[in-house]
C-alpha cells in the first residue's frame, strides 16, 4: 500500500522565536512523503499564489493546518490562505469537489494549559469548541476532519516534554500515512494526542 502524502500548511509570523514550533517542524520536515509549506516565508506580503497552493493540495492526501493559537484562532495568513485557496467552485459549491475525501486536522500550540480551556477554566470554552470553524470548513469541502494534535502550556514545557511531543508528532504522521491509526468517533475525542498509540510513546 502506498503511503499517504501529507501537506503541512504551516503559519507562524515569528517562527525564529518560537521554540515549540521550531522543534515540531524540524522534527517532521524531513520525513518521507511530508511537505511543509511555510506560509509566512513564502507569502510575507499576504499575496498568496493560489495556483501553487491548489496544486499542492491536489497532490496530497492529508492536510495539516499547523499554527499557534492566537486569540482563539489561527494567525491571519492562514485565514487568508483559507479565504483565497479554498475557492468557490473548486473546494466547495457546485462542482467544488477537489478536496473530497482528503483528511485534515489542526496541529496547534498554546500557552495556556488544557485546564484553562474548559467551561470552568479561564477561557471558558474547550479547544475543540474554538476549532469549530476549521471543522466546519473541512466538512463544507467534503473532507474528513480529525481531532487536533495540541501542544499545550508551551511556556512551561521542559526539554524532555517537548522532545516527547516531537516524537508523538512524528509517530502520528507516520501512522496516519500508513492508515494504521484507529480514530474513535471524532466528537468524543478531544485531542488526537490522547490516543493510546501516542500515549504509550510518552512512557518510554
Amino acid at each position, binding site marked *: 500500500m502506498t503511503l499517504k502524502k501529507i501537506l503541512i500548511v504551516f503559519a507562524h509570523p515569528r517562527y525564529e522565536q518560537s521554540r515549540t514550533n521550531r522543534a515540531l517542524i524540524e522534527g517532521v520536515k524531513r520525513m518521507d512523503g511530508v511537505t511543509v509549506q511555510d506560509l509566512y516565508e513564502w507569502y510575507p506580503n499576504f*499575496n498568496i499564489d493560489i495556483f501553487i497552493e491548489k496544486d499542492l493540495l491536489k497532490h496530497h492526501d492529508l492536510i495539516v493546518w499547523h499554527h499557534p493559537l492566537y486569540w482563539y484562532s489561527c494567525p491571519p495568513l492562514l485565514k487568508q490562505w483559507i*479565504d*483565497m485557496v479554498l*475557492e*468557490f467552485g473548486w473546494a466547495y459549491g457546485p462542482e467544488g469537489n477537489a478536496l473530497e475525501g482528503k483528511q485534515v486536522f489542526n496541529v496547534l500550540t498554546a500557552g495556556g494549559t488544557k485546564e484553562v480551556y474548559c467551561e470552568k477554566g479561564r477561557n471558558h470554552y474547550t479547544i475543540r469548541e474554538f476549532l469549530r470553524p476549521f471543522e466546519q470548513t473541512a466538512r463544507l469541502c467534503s473532507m474528513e476532519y480529525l481531532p487536533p494534535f495540541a501542544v499545550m502550556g508551551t511556556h512551561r514545557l521542559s526539554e524532555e516534554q517537548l522532545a516527547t511531543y516531537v516524537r508523538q508528532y512524528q509517530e502520528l504522521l507516520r501512522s496516519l500515512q500508513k492508515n494504521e491509526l484507529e480514530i474513535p468517533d471524532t466528537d468524543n475525542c478531544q485531542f488526537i494526542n490522547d490516543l493510546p498509540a501516542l500515549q504509550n510513546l510518552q512512557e518510554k
Partner: protein
Amino acid sequence: MTGTFLFQAVIYLSAAVVCVPIAKRFGLSSVLGYLFAGIIIGPYLLKFIGEEGEDILHFAEFGVVMMLFLIGLEIEPKAFWKMKKTILGMGGSQVVLTTLLSFGLLSVMGYSWQSGLSIAMALSLSSTAIVLQTLKEKNLMDTVYGASSFSILLFQDIIVIPMLAVIPLFSTAAASVSGGHEGGHPSFLDNLPVGLRTVFVLLSVVCVVLAGRYLFVPLLRVVALTRLRELFSASALLIVIAIAYLMELVGLSPALGAFLGGVVLATSEFKHELESNLEPFKGLLLGLFFIAVGASINFGMILDNPVEITLLVVGVITLKGVVLYIVASIFRIKMDQKLLIVVGLSQVGEFAFVLLSFANQLGIFSKERLDLFLVITAISMTLTPLLAIFNEHVILPKIGTKESEEKPPMDTIEKKNKVILVGFGHFGSTIGRFLRANGVESTILDHDSSRVDLLRKMGFEVYYGDAMREDLLESAGAGDAKILISAIDDPDATLRMVEVLQHNYPDLTLLVRAKSRVDAYQLLNAGVTHIYRETLDTSVRVAEDALHFLGHRKYTTLRQAQNFKKYDEDSLRRLADKVLNSDEYIFKAREEIAQQEALLKEDLERGQLSDEDTSWDSESMRNRINAGKSAGS
C-alpha cells in the same frame, strides 16, 4: 657585458619570462625561478650582467620597500593589537634567541663584539619577501604555518627600526673610519655626533607618521576628485618614493619608512585603492630583487673558501632552524606545521643586506666580511625553496599523515563582512541603512571619495575604489563574502563587474540593481538571477495611488499591483531570450520601444487583472449561484 637600458630590460624581462614559468611548471615557487634567472644571467654564467649587479640590487631593493609599504597597509592598529601576543611572543623570542646564540658563536670565532652583534642581528632576520610570496602563491596564509610565519616576519620587520637606530652606537668603538663612507650613500648624518644621529633617526620616523596623516591623505583626496586612475597610481608611487628618499637622506632604511607610511595609511579610506595600485609594481620589482640576489652571489668567493662558506651557511640555517623549532614548540604548534615554519623561515633575509651594508659603512667591519655574509645570505635565500621542496616531499610524508588543517588558533588580521555593498549613492545608501538597522554591517565600496570620507565619519566601513577591479574586490573580501549587492548607477560598469565576479567568485550570491528593462535583460543573459529594476516598484506605486484617487479601493489595488509586478517579472524572464537574438539589440532606444510594444500587447491579451481575481468576489459567486438556480429550476 653592459649595454643600453633597453638591452638590460630585455635581458631581465626575458630571464624572468623564461625561468619563472619553468619553475611554476615544476610546481616550484616563482621566487626560485627568479633566483635562478639571476644566477644564469649573472657574471658567473652567461655574464649578461656583471659589476652593475650590485647597483641593480640597490635599485631592486625598492621592491622590498614597496612590499613593506603594502605590508604596513595590511596592518590596522586595531588588528595589530589583537595579534600582539603572537607577534611579540613568537617574533620576539625568535629574534632574541637567534641573535644571542649567533652572537655567542661569533664571539667564540673571534669576532669583536661590535661586529659580532651587528652580524648576529642581521642573521636573526628572515626573508619577508620570499616567505610571503610563497605563502600567497600556495594560498597558505590562513594556516597555522602561514599565520605564525606572518607574525614572526612582522615582528622582524618592525624590530629592524630599533636595530638600525642602535647600530650607529657600536661605531664609537670603531670610530676610526667615521666620516668615510664607502657604499656611496651621501648622508648628512655622517658628520653628526652619534647621539644626534639617533635623535634624527627618531625625528624622521615622527616625520613620516605626521606626513601620512596630514599630508598624504588630503593629497589623495584631491587626486581622487580628478577621477584619473593613472594619477592615483602616480600619487601612490610618489608617496612610497618620497618616503624612501627621505629615509635615504637621513641614512635610514627606506623599507622601514615605507612600512611606517603603510601603517599610517592603513586606516585611511584609500587603503584598498593604494593596495591595488601598487601591487603590480611590487610584484615586478620584487622579481627584479630576486634576480639581483641570484646575480650577486659571488661564486668566485665561494670557490676560494668552499669549506668555510659551506660550514657557515649550514651553521646559520641550522641555528635558525633550531631556534624556530624551540619557539614553535613553546607555542604548541603541531609537528607538520612546525617543520614548515622551521624550513620556511630558516634563511637570512633581505634586511641583512641593509643592516650589513649599513654596519660596513659605519666601519664596524671590513668589506671582506660584508661580502662573506652577503654571499651567505644570498645562498641561504636560494636554498630555502629547495629545502622546502625536500621537506614537503621527503620529511613531511614520513612523520605520518598531514595533520588536518584547523583554523588558526591565533587572531586573523582582517575582519570580513558577509555582505559587500558596491555603490553608496541614493540607492545603495538606503540598502546599507536598512541592513544596518537589522544589525548587518556591510563592507562598502564606493568611488566617490568625499562620500567615502563622510560615511567613515559615520562609522561605516567604507572603502574608496573602482569596484570593477579584481584586486580591489579581492581585498574587500569577495572571496569570503556571502552576498554582494551591486547598487552602481552605471549599467555598463555593473555589467563588467558582474562578469568579473562571476568568473572569480562563482559561489557569491549577486543582488544587482538594474536601471532599465534592457539592462535587466543584459544581466539576465549574463546569468544573474536576482535583478532589481530601480523603477518598477516606484512606478507601480504611483499608479496605485492614481487609482486610489480615482476611487479604487486600496487593498484591491494593492493586490492588483502585486500581481502586475509578478507578471512583469515573468515576462522579463520570458523575453530576455528573444532580446539576445534580436537584430535590434544593438540599438538600445529602438529596443526599448520594441519592448514596450511587446509588453502592451501581452497586457491586452491577458485582459484586465481583476477578471481572474476571484478571491472574496461575492459578485461572481452570486452570478454563478443564480445562474445555477435558473438552470436547475
